[in-house]
């Protein structure tokens, strides 16, 4: 009885796997067709969509923007995350409340946060008002094609910084105390301790953050859709947004799916390479 029944425990996992794999398979199939939402005739056209996508300037442009967006977000998040995690790892009065407050952005739905930021980033919004005390000129946060990408990356950082901080904080708290004590005994200053002990020990957690946040940022849609919709001009038209427009707004489903597959492939390869190069050959996902 005990032996016979054990497959039941695997069943949910299989079902979930099937529910992921089936749509994925259908997506792969349609990416090789001329599927347009409004034309019922679906024909197999081989790699045509993939070739079109790779040859189109739009695809590479959107990819470039997506990579910029991701890199900007990640750089700020990592630096600020390590700093904040360090502060939060100290013990002092009121730390409980501060920790709670720091994590609130994560509890607000990203779309709502983005709408609030859109209002704050308006030319006469709160942000420019505050900056005016520093004598700064009015910044066109979301309405200049030169700055908008940076602004949406900032919103991305604001929303997901708590996540980064959380991982790094739990990393910091799990570190063994011995190396630190030894370093102090040896007379290392705090800068040396940070760069020669904290950072190397924290590496697995930093890599975790890089992996998660790269994948997430590459897939960003909600923040941009609820602020700039890809504009001004097409300065924030990241790949996810381009794919959404192509597939659902312009009805070119087959083509859009081929772009999704290319994006998926890139993210997959990145995570494999990142994982292996950081953790060595023994580790694998």
């Amino acid at each position: 009885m005990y032996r016979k029944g054990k497959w039941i425990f695997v069943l949910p996992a299989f079902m979930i796997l099937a529910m992921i794999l089936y749509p994925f398979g259908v997506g792969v199939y349609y990416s090789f067709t001329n599927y347009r939402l409004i034309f019922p005739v679906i024909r197999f056209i081989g790699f045509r969509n993939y070739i079109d996508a790779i040859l189109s300037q739009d695809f590479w442009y959107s990819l470039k923007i997506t990579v910029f967006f991701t890199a900007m977000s990640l750089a700020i998040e990592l630096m600020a995350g390590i700093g904040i995690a360090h502060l939060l790892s100290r013990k002092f009065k009121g730390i409980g409340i501060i920790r709670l407050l720091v994590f609130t952005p994560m509890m607000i739905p990203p779309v709502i946060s983005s709408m609030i930021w859109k209002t704050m980033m308006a030319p006469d919004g709160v942000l420019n008002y505050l900056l005016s005390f520093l004598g700064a000129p009015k910044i066109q946060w979301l309405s200049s094609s030169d700055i908008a990408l940076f602004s949406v990356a900032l919103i991305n950082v604001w929303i997901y910084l708590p996540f980064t901080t959380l991982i790094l904080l739990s990393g910091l708290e799990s570190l063994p105390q011995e190396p630190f004590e030894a370093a102090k005994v040896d007379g290392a200053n705090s800068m040396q301790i940070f760069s020669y002990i904290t950072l190397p020990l924290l590496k697995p957690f930093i890599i975790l953050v890089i992996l998660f946040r790269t994948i997430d940022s590459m897939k960003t849609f909600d923040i941009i859709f609820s602020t700039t919709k890809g504009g001004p001009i097409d300065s924030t038209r990241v790949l996810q947004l381009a794919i959404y427009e192509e597939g659902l707004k312009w009805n070119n489903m087959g083509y859009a799916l081929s772009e999704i597959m290319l994006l998926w492939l890139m993210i997959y390869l990145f995570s494999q390479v990142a994982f292996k190069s950081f953790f060595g050959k023994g580790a694998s996902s």
Partner: protein
Amino acid sequence: MRKGLFIFMIVLLLATMTFATFNWRKFAGQTITVLFVKHPFTEAILPYISEFTQKTGISVSFLVLPETEYWDKLNIDLSSGQGSYDVFMTGPSIEWQHAYAGWIEPLDSYVKSSELTSPDYDFEDFYPAFTAANRWNKKIGGGLGEGHLWAIPVMVETSILAYRKDIFDKYGVKVPETYEEWRKVAAELAEKAKSENIYPVIQRGARDITSIQAGYYTAFSTYGAKDFDENMNCTINSPQGVKITEIWVDTIKKYGPPDWTNVTWFDLMERFASGRYGMVVDCDFFAGTYENPKKSKVAGKVAYALPPKGPDGAIRSNIWTWALSMNARSKHKEAAWYFIQWVTSKEMLLRSALYGNLDPVRKSVWENPKVVEMTEKWGGGTWRKVVTQMLEKYAAWRPTPQTELIAMWTRWIEALHEIYEGKATAKEALDKAAKDIDKIMERAGLK
């Protein structure tokens, strides 16, 4: 002669008999599913749906979605061929795609059928321009207002000029009658009304097709420009197109809010109501918000005028009209038609208009004393006068029928952004956009 009279009497008798006995309960027991957009029309109709079920015995289940989600959900469902929704809200450019794909049912035969349509439905009561907007013969590049009727309109919006009468009067500024004057008046306001702390103009500008559809398309058409020639070559870069686009973007850049490229229709409405803007050429029914002291700081201070005229003295306002279509895959077409018929009846459209679903598409609703009473004081009486002329004369759906309107207009608004940011002149930006739009048409096989 006598025989003729006799037959005439019989026919008359039969006619009155059908009149008296139109059977609303013919399809009792059936269930239909309706997909609604979140919109004042929907809010007005939903409370009465139980009345429809009582009257007809047809049960209605429905789903209401916000507009951004609505089209995606609808298109995916229609393309799957499931027929999940028997009736859904739609509009002219969307109908072109749906009709082309064969997803929606032509409604002419239903309207004409005396068995399926109550004699007091009175189709002639609809303003012709708005039923024409929902008619198309499925020929790319033309045939608008011809062929089958694909949907029945439930509301329409036209573009008119709303301006701050208090400020205009205070500084002796004249209401603009042409687009050149519009630019000049904006400049005048910027200079004379400096102490009011206002931006002289506001228009839609977000990267969104609705930014093309209302004020801009009205100006574009009024100036005599067209989106395509008869061979489906994109002509947005014609001399008229370039000229009006230059006036439009330049005026907004100099005299509008600095974040124009983020202004959606909703922002525009809220912001004009906030009292920080001088004038706007946009949706007429926003007056409902402007004139409501609870929502607006400018209630009682706004007057309305016809949108500026073109070089030939004509006005060609573009419209948007929400309408109801029937799914070609519906398994309860007659019941679905009963629902469409009931919703678009004089009675229901009147109720929805009184709730705030403006402008009416039926003449009888527009002229109903209650609607007159609700609207006649807006803008000191100017609103009603202007909108009556718009409904009867100047408003129509202008774009050339084709299936790639969303892709095309997205590219178009990008061009306007380029001009706004000074990255290209109007001519350069529109030339480039026209070339890209030609490519979009080629790719879709429409050229």
